[in-house]
């Protein structure tokens, strides 16, 4: 059983089909990178997998539990109690962080575990402090997001997602809103998570990073998976579309 199974999902916006029959299975501890040109549907995959977007066809299954299933546009969701539990299996780190501006760093991280998931306050705070330390933000717990750099905000967002102990963490271009130095610090943090064997699905434009960190790379092209395999298999495939993509890239 895979941790996550995306089975044959399709998604259209109006008459533009953005995802054309996408299947991705992710096993526990795996790190999967998704690459591809702008508009190829990478973000849409993550949004469908995290239920921010509905699907037209296919199914999304976490830990063997079907979160949502669609047949010809008719959606069937898990019951609301199941959905809440399934919702706890995944976390998402957004390109633009989406921290809560009116809440301190500490509150951003601890509010959901305490208020939504009703966990013990002292325990949550202790875990949050450990997470902040791991993120090199130990001295920022009382700061507000507006007082932090983009890289610091992104690290808080990662800590906030990790505080719920998700089974899989999705990243949507976590560094593309950042300067090069800030990018490096965020990538370093994600690498640190890889060493802890946290399951991750990462949409990224950082090709070297994808090559180094991933167990598997998926190359998206016009709503389809064009290539999938180990970094070496994909990057050294000589595939024409990939070569073109990587070529545009180095310009």
């Amino acid at each position, binding site marked *: 059983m895979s941790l996550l199974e995306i089975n044959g999902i399709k998604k259209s916006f109006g008459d533009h089909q953005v995802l054309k029959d996408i299947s991705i299975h992710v096993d526990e501890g795996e790190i999967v990178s998704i690459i591809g040109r702008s508009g190829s549907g990478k973000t849409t995959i993550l949004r469908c997998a995290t239920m*921010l977007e509905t699907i037209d066809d296919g199914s999304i299954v976490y830990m063997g539990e079907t979160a949502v299933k669609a047949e010809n546009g008719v959606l069937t969701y898990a019951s609301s109690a199941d959905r809440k539990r399934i919702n706890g299996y995944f976390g998402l780190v957004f390109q633009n962080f989406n921290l809560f501006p009116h809440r301190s760093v500490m509150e951003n991280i601890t509010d959901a575990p305490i*208020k939504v998931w009703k966990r013990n306050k002292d325990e949550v705070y202790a875990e949050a402090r450990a997470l902040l330390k791991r993120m090199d933000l130990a001295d920022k717990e009382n700061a507000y997001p507006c007082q932090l750099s983009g890289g610091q905000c992104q690290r808080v967002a990662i800590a906030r997602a990790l505080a*719920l102990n998700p089974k899989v963490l999705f990243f949507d271009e976590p560094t593309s809103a950042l300067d090069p130095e800030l990018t490096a610090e965020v990538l370093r943090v994600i690498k640190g998570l890889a060493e802890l064997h946290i399951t991750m699905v990462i949409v990224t434009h950082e090709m070297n990073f994808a090559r180094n960190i991933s167990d598997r790379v998926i190359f998206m092209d016009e709503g389809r998976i064009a290539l999938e395999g180990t970094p070496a298999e994909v990057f050294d495939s000589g595939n024409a579309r990939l070569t073109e993509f990587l070529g545009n890239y180095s310009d």
Partner: protein
Amino acid sequence: MSIQTMLMQLLGGFGQTVIIFLLTLVISLPLGMLVYFGRASRLKPVSALVKVYISIMRGTPLMLQLLLWYFGPFYLWGANIGGYKFTAIIIGCSVNYAAYFAEIYRSGIESIPKGQYEAAQLLGYSKAQTFIHIILPQVIKIVMPSVTNEVITLVKDTSLVYSVSYVEMLAVAKQISAAQTTIFPLVAAGVFYYIFNVIVAFLMERIEKRLNYYH
């Protein structure tokens, strides 16, 4: 009549002004949120009806609305006109200001980025929790300057109840002024309104400052 007596009488009228002001605020601030929910409702007839209500409230003079609330029950059902003047005034003012507040809340709520809702959903917040813990606190900060404007307008608008011969400060001032043939009570009433507004503005500014811990 001594200046002291005049001031005492004015102060009595001022008390009425303050009561109308406070009651209207206490009712219309939350009522405005309810009106916003109606306007944002997915039930088309509800949102259409609320839109018409808001447009009428904002498109006709408050003084005329007060006259209708006051004389309406009398002409329509022969209600005892002496009995409900104060109620009519409070309803008229509250229902009018709620429409303005609803529009202010709407612009504030619509300015919150979609990502805030999505982040909350990912963290497991329910719709109600998202609104109360994530959206509302940010909206309050955003709408504060517009709410302050309305509140200051309300201080002055309380004098409109004069049109249904309710005895508040302006009515008292005009009475004394006519009886004593002196302009002094009117000037004094102006000073009272002004001081009241300065205090209100000061309090609102304090609240705005407290909300300035982030931007």
